[in-house]
């Protein structure tokens, strides 16, 4: 069982959370201008590193806020969590 640190609520059990995929993706500023290939890349293609990965998490059963996390995909260890208006810790 993972203990995940919500930036607002502090450490909580993983059953209170939902996973939201890769963090830091930006919507194409001019979606009309991108090619089908670029659009498909934005919609469907995600990084899949072995090691630290920036992810979105949702504190679904708690404060119901989205936040970001850096998690090691090999060990499942949460390296850091941070609010959406904060920069990822170096």
């Amino acid at each position: 069982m993972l203990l995940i640190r919500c930036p607002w609520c502090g450490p909580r059990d993983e059953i209170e959370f939902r996973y939201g995929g890769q963090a830091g993706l930006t919507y194409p500023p001019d979606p009309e201008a991108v090619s089908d290939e670029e659009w498909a890349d934005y919609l469907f293609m995600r990084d899949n590193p072995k090691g630290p990965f920036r992810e979105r998490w949702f504190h679904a059963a708690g404060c119901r806020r989205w936040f970001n996390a850096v998690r090691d995909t090999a060990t499942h260890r949460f390296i850091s969590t941070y609010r959406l208006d904060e920069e990822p810790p170096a």
Partner: protein
Amino acid sequence: MTADARARSPLAARAADLATIGAELVPFLAQVDLRVDPTHAGIAPYPLPLEPNTAWHDDHYAALWLGPDEWLILGPADAAGEIVAALETAFADVDRSVVDVSANRVAIALTSEDRLDLLSHVCPLDLDPRVWSAGRCAQTMLGRAQAILLERAGTTPVLVRPSFADYVVNLLLAVRGATSGVGA
């Protein structure tokens, strides 16, 4: 406003079971959800706690932190209209959302001495008195049901969705049965 004479709590028929788990029904608790920028908290008609997972209360009303820009205001039965009016007046000049959610949750108050032991069997929160003490509140899970817990001196009000109320009572009954004699 007066309570609708037809209003009936989903736990109305479970007084004996509530007594067994050391709880009592808090009938028709007024609940109003407030969302507003926390920089405006100072003009609220009730003190809005800014520290996450803490609550303010007096003899009649309570304000629970639900999120950085969201609070749940509690009051006596029939007070929802008055609370909504007070909030709408106070925040008339700023962006806000004020919604009567009184029918959204059923409230029971756990009053037994070992209530936190009981809850800890079905709740992932750390309910150790060193971190969970009077003045704290939290949104969390009781078994598979979402719940709001509020800690006060000698009592722990628990708010759950009406459709989960029977389930939560059954869950706590099962814990009570399985642990009877342990700390009871």
